């Protein structure tokens, strides 16, 4: 059996296990938890007309998803713009590292939900507050990994620069940047995962349009099938984002 076919078989088997567990849990909860089959029916119904727009509180799943993705990418983009330069600074200078490290360690573990009120106070508008929360929670993995990548360039590579008289600029562009790139991308991959996690939580608080809002709204409408469907969508999108960055990572990792 060839590789691609085999991986599809594994995928389907995985889903089968998931659905089986779900059905058992549904039965055990006396159908408080909707069955997978009912949920899938609603799921396909949602996707039959994903882009309808019936007013500010009633939009198709496609529009909700796009709104969330837009916020995630803006937040992730801004976070990256902050994280990478600071990461380089911290990784290349021990004094700066020693000064900023405690700051990083204090800010990093704070939950996005705790940042939200601060975001509202600063940004006034809940949409911008949500983006603020994404920026401040998702930039840490990129920053830390970038710093680590910059500070751990193998001595062998540094020796090449020294032996052949590389100028500062040449060292940075031909040795430092390419050597630290794999770790920077690892940081980005972790950051996008955090950003996606955070958007759902933040949107539940902020309301408006988005997949997180959709979850809360469906709960209020007592449609657990829609909630479960949303959970599935959130999971699948997270998987796709991760695979995307994983592919980028592979492209820039070279064997020695």
């Amino acid at each position: 059996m060839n590789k691609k076919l085999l991986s599809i078989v594994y995928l389907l088997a995985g889903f089968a296990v998931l659905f089986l567990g779900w059905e058992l849990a549904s039965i055990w909860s006396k159908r408080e938890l909707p069955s997978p089959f009912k949920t899938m029916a609603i799921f396909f119904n949602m996707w039959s007309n994903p882009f309808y727009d019936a007013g500010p509180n009633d939009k198709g799943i496609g529009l909700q998803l796009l709104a969330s993705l837009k916020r995630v990418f803006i937040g992730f983009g801004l976070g990256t713009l902050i994280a990478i330069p600071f990461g380089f600074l911290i990784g290349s200078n021990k004094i700066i590292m020693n000064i900023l490290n405690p700051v990083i360690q204090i800010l990093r573990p704070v939950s996005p939900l705790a940042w939200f009120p601060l975001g509202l106070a600063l940004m006034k508008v809940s949409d911008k507050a949500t983006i603020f929360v994404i920026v401040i929670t998702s930039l840490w993995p990129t920053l830390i990994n970038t710093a680590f990548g910059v500070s751990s360039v193998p001595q062998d590579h540094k020796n090449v620069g020294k032996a052949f008289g590389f100028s500062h600029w040449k060292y940075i562009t031909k040795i430092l940047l390419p050597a630290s790139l794999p770790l920077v991308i690892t940081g980005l991959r972790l950051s996008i995962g955090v950003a996606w996690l955070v958007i759902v939580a933040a949107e539940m608080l902020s309301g408006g349009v988005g997949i997180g809002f959709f979850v809360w709204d469906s709960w209020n409408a007592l449609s657990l099938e829609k909630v479960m469907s949303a959970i599935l969508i959130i999971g699948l999108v997270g998987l796709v984002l991760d695979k995307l960055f994983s592919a980028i990572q592979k492209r820039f990792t070279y064997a020695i």
Partner: protein
Amino acid sequence: METIKLHHHVDEEIADAIIEPALNPPLSIEIKNVSVTFRSSNGKTKFTAVREIDLEVKKGEIISLIGHSGCGKSTLMGTISGMVKPTSGEVWASGLKVTGPGPDRGIVFQNYSLLPWLTVFENIFVAVDAALKNKPAVEKKELVIHNLKMVHLWDHKDKHPGQLSGGMKQRVAIARAFAINPSILLLDEPFGALDALTKSSMHVELLKLWNLDNREKTIVMVTHDIEEAIFLSDRVVVMNNGPEATIKEIVNIPLDRPRNKRSIVHDPMYMEIHDRLLTLLNAKLSIDDIED
């Protein structure tokens, strides 16, 4: 009588001025009373790798530095390449005091040290570009092409180091060192990571490259391998064990060139030299040498 004597004296001086440089070619490398001491990061412990080393290498000579691990041979070569600063003493290369690496000295590292994200061609080009900044781009490209072809790796110029075998990677590293056209070549256990068969053919390839350059390049090589040292060198510098290592003895290798791997082992002089080096290195020769 006195007039004749005066003439004779002046003639002698002129004769000396002409003959002397021919008999004693200019020194390529001079190591003058060099010691290297390393400090630990907290500044508390000192470790002296080599102590009061004096060594002179003539232009076009091939010499090997040999000794047990930790005898400071790589450190000593580091002072020639400029990668290591002597704690005391001076090193002179090509008539100038060594203050750091320079384009007159090409280095081949033990671990190849090729940049994995660049192709073979780019690896050599980027080194030539940095070391020979002021040359026109066309000339730099020419140097890369010429040296790649010399090591027979032209067909692999667009590959990345990860796609090459150990021997090929080392040939790229050698091409890179040759490409900056240095007058001195410094090789730090360049063949240590290769299997014996590849290593053996690399010896012959290195000598071929040296020959193609009219034997003008001075070569200093650090090695553990006695046979390698004898086959390649004009002189073998045997180091004492570290720390505070010094030179134990310098063995001359007056074997004719070009040397032949097969016939050399039957040469009585080779056998004598081989014996001498085994003794100097306190090699364990049989199970009877080891105390129970």
